């Protein structure tokens, strides 16, 4: 029988439903796939933003006021003199103070005023620890009246390098655009440490201290020494601090993203179930004929499943491709949301939707297999 026609191929073709219905279902799956992937990518973008900043090379230890373990949702300041105390600890190569606050950044006139509340980081530029992880244009702040804005924030404000903005009431010139600093709900801005200290009235008390260790320095013993020498402080390794920040970002946006992603997925599953149901209804007589002619119920079920999976796979793959393209276009022309895709997304999405499709199609397929072949005799 090696040369016999495989009934599977002909069966699958015989069981194809209406082309319009398949296109509709495939489009729905593509839209759901696009939605789910875009939301996942937005979540990843937000977490990678905070992780990208707090996990930079050279940020080996983060020192925070006791009770504070993250950059995103925190308050409090370290005591004056902590920086000097840490510098004396063996194994410490460098220390940089960071002042962190939320501040309104405004631009324009009264009639056309744009305003964003940004997570403002004051650090000692240009060589000090605490600066942005990357620049897409310009440079970091070097003077008290300079500011570097996340590029998404700059896009929303409609400004670029050379523009002047108001930061908490003070004028500042935009000297650079940063990337990898978009947290989805807010964005980073970077200013000179002294300017931030003056504006906040911090009197030399930093929000955090970032410590760079000398090669081979013992991390745990340095952390312990820091907590002993800086009163009411807590020291975190880079990984710990990044993890804490990702947790905080996720706690804020993940439930919403998960809900919308879940809804998108549910819509796709419903569409697939409808597609399979439609096949079961439209093809009832054809299935009866196939069973009468000697096709097995299993082969018919697999034929329907293959058709459903093909539609779903192509739809999900199209959605993944569209998400990829949308990401590139957004990044180029409207970088308001950081979409972080992974190379595995175009594989994972169709696989996930395909698995859901198999479950959704199960009921209609079982109904198909129970069709009485005697129906083929009905006129």
């Amino acid at each position, binding site marked *: 029988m090696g040369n*016999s*026609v495989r009934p599977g191929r002909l069966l699958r073709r015989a069981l194809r439903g209406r082309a319009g219905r398949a296109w509709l279902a495939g489009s729905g799956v593509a839209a759901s796939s696009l939605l789910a992937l875009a939301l996942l990518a937005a979540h990843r973008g937000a977490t990678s933003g905070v992780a990208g900043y707090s996990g930079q090379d050279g940020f080996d230890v983060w020192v925070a006021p006791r009770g504070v373990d993250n950059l995103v949702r925190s308050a409090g300041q370290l005591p004056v003199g902590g920086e000097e105390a840490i510098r004396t600890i063996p194994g410490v190569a460098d220390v940089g103070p960071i002042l962190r606050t939320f501040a309104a950044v405004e631009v324009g006139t009264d009639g056309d005023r744009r305003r964003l509340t940004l997570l403002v980081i004051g650090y000692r530029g240009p060589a000090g620890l605490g600066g942005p992880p990357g620049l897409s244009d310009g440079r970091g702040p070097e003077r008290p009246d300079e500011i570097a804005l996340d590029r998404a924030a700059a896009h929303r404000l409609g400004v670029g390098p050379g523009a002047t903005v108001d930061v908490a009431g003070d004028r500042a010139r935009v000297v650079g655009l940063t990337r990898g600093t978009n947290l989805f709900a807010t964005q980073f801005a970077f200013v000179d440490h002294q300017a931030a200290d003056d504006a906040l009235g911090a009197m030399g008390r930093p929000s955090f201290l970032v410590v760079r260790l000398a090669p081979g320095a013992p991390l745990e013993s340095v952390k312990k020494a820091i907590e002993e020498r800086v009163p009411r402080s807590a020291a975190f390794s880079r990984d710990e601090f990044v993890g804490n920040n990702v947790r905080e970002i996720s706690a804020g946006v993940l439930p919403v993203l998960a809900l919308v992603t879940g809804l998108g997925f549910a819509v796709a599953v419903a569409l697939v179930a409808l597609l399979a149901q439609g096949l079961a209804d439209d093809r009832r007589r*054809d299935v009866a004929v196939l069973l009468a002619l000697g096709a097995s119920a299993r082969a018919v079920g697999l034929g329907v499943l293959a058709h459903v999976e093909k539609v779903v796979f192509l739809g999900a793959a199209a959605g993944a491709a569209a998400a990829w393209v949308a990401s590139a276009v957004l990044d180029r022309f409207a970088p308001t949301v950081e979409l972080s895709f992974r190379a595995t997304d175009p594989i994972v999405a169709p696989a996930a939707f395909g698995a859901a499709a198999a479950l959704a199609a199960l009921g209609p397929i079982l109904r198909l297999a129970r069709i009485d072949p005697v129906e083929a*005799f009905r006129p």
Partner: protein
Amino acid sequence: MTAIQMDGVFKVRGRGVLAVPALRGVSLRIEPGELVLLEGPSGSGKTTLLSVAGGLLSPDAGEVRVGGEPLPPRDVEARRSVRARQIGFVFQRSNLLPGLDALENVLLQGALAGIDAALARRRAEELLEAMGVGHLGGRRVGGLSAGEEQRFAVARALVHSPPVVLADEPTASLDSAAGRAVVEALVALGRDRGAAILVATHDGRLAPFASRRLRMVDGGVEPAARPQGEA
């Protein structure tokens, strides 16, 4: 070897108060090359008899053999296998599958019967040429006339050279000329291949072609009048 053998077949259709005895101890034998007409009013059990003979329904009692093979009442897969290899069906409507072109509809039966692909194609082309529709194989089903469709259905029923062909009102949806062409094709090509053909019909035009005529009355089978013109 007897092509169709039914011994003491009983079959009840429906359940509970709706249960109706459709076949009451039917016994019949049809030999290779015979064309047997099964006549009777609507609801007399003709389709049920075809369904039982074709392994689509299992009898409540009695035994059915097709091409010498038993149709085990409780073994769905065994009946399916016998159906695919040993039986060709011609329905009242062509029942060609719209997802396939006309020739593929014929080849599908060959594939289901497990015969060699090249052999199936050669047989299909011979059958279709003999019926004058060989040039229409690539057409979609919707692009054929009812008569042309039914000739493809006849080819589908014969492509795997089954010992038995079961036909249910094969000319009912056709005009006079198309119906005659289909019957002539079924008779000539089926008999050429030694198939036993059982046709349930109301169509008196088929009588001249029949070897025997049976009449179904109240779930039983009895001989009908001899075909016209036969001594």
